[in-house]
């Protein structure tokens, strides 16, 4: 027994050291990467105004000296890493948050050296691009908290994106299009539920079935309907909040950040709060988590395991459908082949990264959203950054892999995740 305990203690110690070493590396990376080609007199100008709408107050731009800022940010991470080495923090979540914030802030300041850059633009784009990832992650959390793995979020979002545009154009009603997205998500989720709960098919394979089906069907119908009869693929978008209430968009910082957005961003934020509260503070949430951790015990206490799982998977499908509507009604307004481009899988990673909690998933989807926004916005600064843009495009996927590898600490998934339940 003692040897076992010792091994355990040692492995924990090593894991701890690995985490500290990782953050030391982050600090070092900030120092080496973001001081390249910087002259001492370089300043970075970060814009706080938007060109989209006229604001009540025009704020002065934020002008910071590049080198000192990078040094300060690196020092913060360095101090935290050393602290972690000597007196390990019990929970690493906020440590990761501060480290990634410092890294990204240093990067931004470095990229904007000697020139100006719209900070508000990139932050508002981050929130916008984080939304489908957040919704996908929330969908997956709903499923996985009841122990049904759902890698079909990608397929559900893609199909919902298709039907929303098609129905909105066919009926002439954007509301019906929106509804169609939710229904599509629910139908595919019900299919996943029947396969994985009723027929006890391996849940990853069942999810793959839906992903392949969704890819095939949307490509098929896109070519056969959308390209033949283009009237079904006209641009339909939900109005921005600032278009509905123009005064909201005029508030400095908050206006462009929160109100120059599609309503789906807001729905995402509301769902985030609702699901977080429901999951941890209501009877439904307790039952869901019980089914996810120990279905047999839950069954013994009279909870209908199958019903809880069906409900949660289908609810998850509705949320994924909303995420799909983001791509069309909430963004470009048209359907395009494979337009979700793997965001559903990034959502999986955000869920795992966020330790199967809505708030954690939100934090990580913001990071992914920021990485996405960078690719768009950095095209302007491409000469400053001198990295081929393909490598920037790889970034979210590499971040996902690093996150999954658990360098940042262990994640705790629902104990029964992925296991079909057999009633005795």
């Amino acid at each position: 027994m003692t040897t076992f305990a010792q091994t355990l203690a040692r492995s924990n110690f090593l894991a701890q050291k690995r985490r500290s070493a990782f953050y030391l590396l982050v600090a070092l990376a900030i120092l080496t990467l973001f001081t390249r080609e910087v002259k001492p007199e370089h300043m970075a100008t970060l814009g706080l105004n938007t060109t989209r709408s006229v604001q009540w107050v025009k704020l002065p731009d934020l002008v910071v000296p590049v080198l000192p800022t990078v040094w300060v940010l690196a020092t913060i991470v360095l101090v935290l890493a050393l602290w972690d080495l000597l007196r390990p923090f019990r929970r690493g979540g906020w440590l990761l948050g501060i480290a990634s914030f410092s890294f990204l802030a240093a990067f931004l300041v470095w990229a904007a050296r000697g020139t100006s850059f719209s900070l508000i633009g990139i932050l508002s784009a981050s929130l916008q691009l984080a939304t489908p990832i957040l919704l996908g992650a929330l969908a997956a959390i709903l499923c996985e908290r009841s122990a049904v793995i759902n890698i079909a979020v990608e397929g559900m979002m893609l199909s919902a994106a298709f039907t929303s545009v098609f129905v909105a154009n066919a009926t002439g009603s954007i509301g019906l299009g929106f509804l169609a997205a939710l229904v599509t998500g629910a139908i595919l989720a019900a299919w996943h539920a029947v396969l994985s709960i009723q027929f006890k098919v391996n849940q990853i394979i069942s999810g793959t079935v839906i992903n392949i089906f969704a890819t095939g069907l949307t490509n098929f119908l896109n070519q056969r309907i959308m390209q033949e009869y283009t009237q079904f693929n006209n641009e339909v978008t939900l109005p921005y909040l600032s278009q509905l209430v123009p005064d909201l968009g005029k508030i400095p910082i908050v206006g462009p950040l929160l109100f120059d957005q599609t309503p789906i961003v807001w729905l995402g934020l509301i769902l985030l709060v609702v699901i977080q509260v429901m999951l941890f503070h209501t009877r439904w949430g307790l039952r869901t988590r019980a089914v996810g951790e120990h279905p047999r015990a839950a069954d013994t206490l009279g909870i209908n395991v199958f019903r809880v799982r069906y409900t949660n998977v289908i609810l998850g499908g509705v949320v994924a459908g909303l995420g799909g509507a983001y791509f069309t009604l909430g963004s470009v307004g048209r359907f395009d082949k494979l337009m979700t481009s793997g965001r559903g899988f990034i959502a999986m990673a955000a869920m795992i990264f966020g330790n199967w909690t809505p708030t954690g998933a939100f934090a990580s989807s913001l990071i992914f959203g920021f990485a996405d926004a960078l690719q768009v916005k950095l095209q302007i600064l491409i000469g400053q950054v001198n990295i081929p843009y393909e490598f920037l495009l790889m970034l979210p996927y590499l971040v996902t892999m690093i996150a999954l590898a658990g360098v940042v600490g262990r994640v705790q998934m629902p104990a029964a995740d992925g296991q079909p339940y057999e009633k005795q």
Partner: protein
Amino acid sequence: MQIADTDRPMWRWQGALGVLALPALSLFSALVLSSIFILGSDVVVLTALRNGLSDPGRALFAVGKALADAYGSLFIGIFGDPARISKEVSEFLATGDTQGLTVAFYPFAENFVTATPYIFAGLAVALGFQCGLFNIGAEGQIYVGAAAAAFVGYSLEGLPWIVHAPLTFLAGALAGAFWAGIAGFLKATRGAHEVINTMMLNYVAFNLVHYLLNGPMKRGGASGAIPISRNIVESAYLPTLFPEPIRFHAGFLVALLVAVLVWWFLFKSTLGFEIRSVGANPHAARCAGISIARNFVLAMALSGALAAMAGAGEVMGVNHNLAEGFSPGYGFDSIALAMLGGGHPLGVVLAALLFGTLRNGATKMQSLAAIPIDIVAIVQAFVIMFVAAPIIIRRLYRLKAEVRWQAILTRGWGG
């Protein structure tokens, strides 16, 4: 988790027919279901059906014509135009001229050209299954392998064929082994799920190839819409075995040979036994002193090497260069293919021939009957579903005997 319905070896008395019943019925049902999508998206059929009550004869005719068009063009795509073939054969018998003959048999030979990458990629996914790993990154591995093969193929000059061709092929395989090995290593050491990681590596690979083709590997003076690399040197070609325009090349024979090797490796060698033990029951394997981590890495690397061979084979046998988007999704299709083949090399070869035939025929479906080639993906989704949930097929066709099929194993996120 196991998807076999029973462990009783029913096939002993059911014979080959019993083993084939599930995949055959799955494929049949998938084709029937897919027909619904063909009909449901056909405007002529839909309008005829709307008037179906008043004019049932016409509705029925429209349905029949749509299906006949679809499957007729599929048939022509697979076997070639029968009239053309009989004409050219009689001409060949009269004059001894093979020129017309090659044109007439071109569609049929294409089946094997398309089946070649499917065999490699299907073997890759099947080998993963045997170790309980779900490699959905074959598509990315194909591109990485093709990029490495193309690079070795065009940058080395003056080597004899006997050295250069195998070297090129091997370079591709090694690149794929490394690429998938990353996912295997992360799974073995950190428990990171290979489904997500291989998927992520796909996107990284696509971007990498895009970068290579627009940067270091860009063909000088190329101005086409699709980025393309330089052509490989002729000494790195896989030879074609028939006169132009037939593209059938030695890669098909190599694929068959590799399939035999994979079968021998999995079922006759110690390493293969270890891999299968880890796949069947990791806990028991660990108790028997088999390293799970080592086998995860080994199986993933081998799987990646096999998938990359598909890419290398396309570069060396068909395209002779690396072009963006040269694979129409061989890697993704191979998932369904490996499942249909029951994760066994022989099954994979048969399923690959089937898929090659289907995809080849579907291209004609697209050009003759205007049915998008993506119908193949819809068929595949249903095939995977029926193979993974044999209970549906059993109930649908009221099969009395239990259908035994290869257990396919994957685990949850934890690993």
